[in-house]
């Protein structure tokens, strides 16, 4: 099944536009005729879901910004005003807050997919690094946004996270004062966090453009990790990938809707419904669930500076995966030993998340340290060593062989190479 390779505008209007700004041709070649490997599974739909969630966050965020006031005496009340008085304000606020959670869920799934199938390997290293930059931008944006309602958790999260910079020797205290714009988290801090929270999502959108561009230059990876060699190993993006992406977007939206309409405050912290009080620290300061693994790593290390370095390193190390992993085989489908370490890694990440929500005492600390150790050992030791010593399964010569070869083994006759082929 193949669509015509170049864009041929059918209407006079489109011909007029195309000659002056070939946007029709760009959209056509990138998202209609674009050759996409035909063996992709549903884990490949999360890129589209992430773009959709970015749009949801931008839209709900911009309309919320029409009603929010960033001033310490007014911020909390303005959010309550949105919840109670603004038409559908409750819906917009819950969509935005739960949308952030869904955004991170999709991002983590998307990244785990990349780690499992080797999507970071040559020639997709820059694509991967752009992704790490996107994760960092998302983390910053989410933190800035959480401060805005100016509840107890907002204020103390801002205090704790900005205080991390005081660990830097010599210039640390100066940097913290500069970030605060005062002697503590206060109105100057809230104001600038609002400005930056509005800015960063557009920076994210720009980096997403680079990310998709980098992807389209190399082509997508696929579950077998074998580059497509013939034309019939790919299908046109539209309708195949488009409909697959759309379907999972709907399923994902149902999950988002479940939270928004049935349990909208489930993922949040009740203490954030208490207005910020600089003289009272809540007994348990915890970030939102999507930051818990990093929070666990920070607290696992008893030394303040090294804890902060470990936190930064836990994200920075991701950028080096293309070089840390020495395996010549791309996909974990053909790497049985790597697969086991990978799933342990996933469990460790979830475990770190759970531990991050617990008070840092007793056995919780012990396990947080063990899991933190595995996290770094996985990247710095296991990935480099496995590539050299692992006995991989034989990699098929092509996607066709990977897909059809299996069916031949089972005994069923191979279906014709493509479904409905026109002329």
């Amino acid at each position: 099944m193949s669509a015509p390779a170049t864009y041929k505008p059918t209407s006079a209007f489109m011909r007029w536009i195309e000659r002056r700004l070939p946007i029709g041709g760009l959209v056509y070649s990138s998202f209609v005729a674009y050759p996409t490997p035909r063996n992709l599974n549903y884990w490949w739909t999360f890129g589209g879901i992430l773009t959709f969630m970015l749009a949801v966050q931008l839209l709900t965020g911009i309309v919320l910004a029409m009603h929010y006031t960033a001033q310490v005496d007014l911020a909390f009340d303005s959010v309550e005003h949105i919840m109670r008085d603004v038409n559908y304000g409750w819906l917009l606020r819950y969509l935005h807050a739960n949308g952030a959670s869904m955004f991170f869920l999709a991002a983590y799934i998307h990244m785990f997919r990349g780690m499992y199938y080797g999507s970071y390997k040559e020639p997709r290293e820059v694509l991967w690094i752009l992704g790490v930059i996107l994760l960092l931008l998302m983390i910053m944006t989410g933190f800035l946004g959480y401060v805005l309602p100016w509840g107890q958790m907002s204020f103390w999260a801002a205090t704790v996270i900005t205080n991390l910079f005081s660990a830097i020797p010599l210039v640390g205290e100066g940097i913290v004062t500069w970030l605060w714009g005062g002697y503590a988290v206060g109105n100057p801090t809230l104001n600038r966090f609002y400005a930056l929270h509005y800015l960063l999502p557009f920076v994210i959108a720009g980096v997403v453009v680079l990310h998709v561009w980098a992807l389209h230059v190399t082509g997508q990876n696929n579950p077998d990790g074998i580059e497509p060699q013939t034309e019939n190993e790919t299908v046109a993006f539209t309708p195949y990938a488009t409909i697959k992406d759309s379907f999972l977007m709907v399923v994902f939206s149902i999950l988002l809707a479940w939270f928004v309409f049935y349990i909208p405050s489930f993922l949040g912290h009740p203490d954030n419904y208490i207005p910020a009080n600089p003289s009272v620290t809540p007994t348990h300061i915890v970030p939102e669930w999507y930051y818990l693994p990093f929070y666990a790593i920070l607290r696992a290390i008893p030394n303040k500076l090294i804890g902060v370095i470990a936190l930064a390193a836990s994200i920075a190390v991701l950028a080096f995966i293309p070089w840390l992993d020495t395996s010549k085989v791309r996909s974990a489908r053909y790497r049985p030993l790597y697969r086991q370490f990978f799933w342990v890694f996933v469990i460790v990440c979830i475990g770190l998340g759970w531990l991050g929500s617990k008070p840092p005492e007793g056995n919780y600390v012990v396990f947080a340290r063990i899991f933190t150790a595995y996290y770094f050992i996985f990247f710095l030791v296991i990935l480099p060593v496995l590539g050299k010593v692992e006995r991989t399964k034989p990699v098929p010569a092509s996607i066709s062989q990977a897909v059809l070869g299996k069916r031949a083994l089972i005994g069923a006759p191979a279906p014709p190479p493509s479904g409905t082929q026109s002329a």
Partner: protein
Amino acid sequence: MIATGVVAGVGAVAALWPLVEQMNPDASTIAAGAPIEVDLTPIAEGQAIKVFWRSKPIFINHRTKKQIEDARNVDVAKLPDPQPDSARVKQGHEQWQVLIAICTHLGCIPLADQGPFDGYFCPCHGSVYDTSGRIRQGPAPLNLALPPYEFISDTKIRIG
């Protein structure tokens, strides 16, 4: 060639400097951070109050004889952040402990008259301070900081 580059560099720094410096505390914030005077007479022995100076919470603790004893009976060299109690109070006013109530770990406010030393305890990550505000156990690296203050009479201090 190099001269042009240097001039361009100086120009760039000059252009960027206001953009960076604008984030530092502004004139109104600095003005709001002027010194405050606190009357100590209402504070009973064994009582600690909290005041704010420059948006920072400050403990003013009227220490009991026992708390002063405990603060002195310590092998200073063995402390994580060695400091004698005498360096943390004003001479002749040893019963008054004035500390910035911010845990030196990650910035939470400790609780007064708590913890195994009857000093301060930070609930966030379990740092324990003694009756002199010195770190004894837990992840905090330093003793509780002292604000700049002086006694303008036996019953009044100026902080800042």
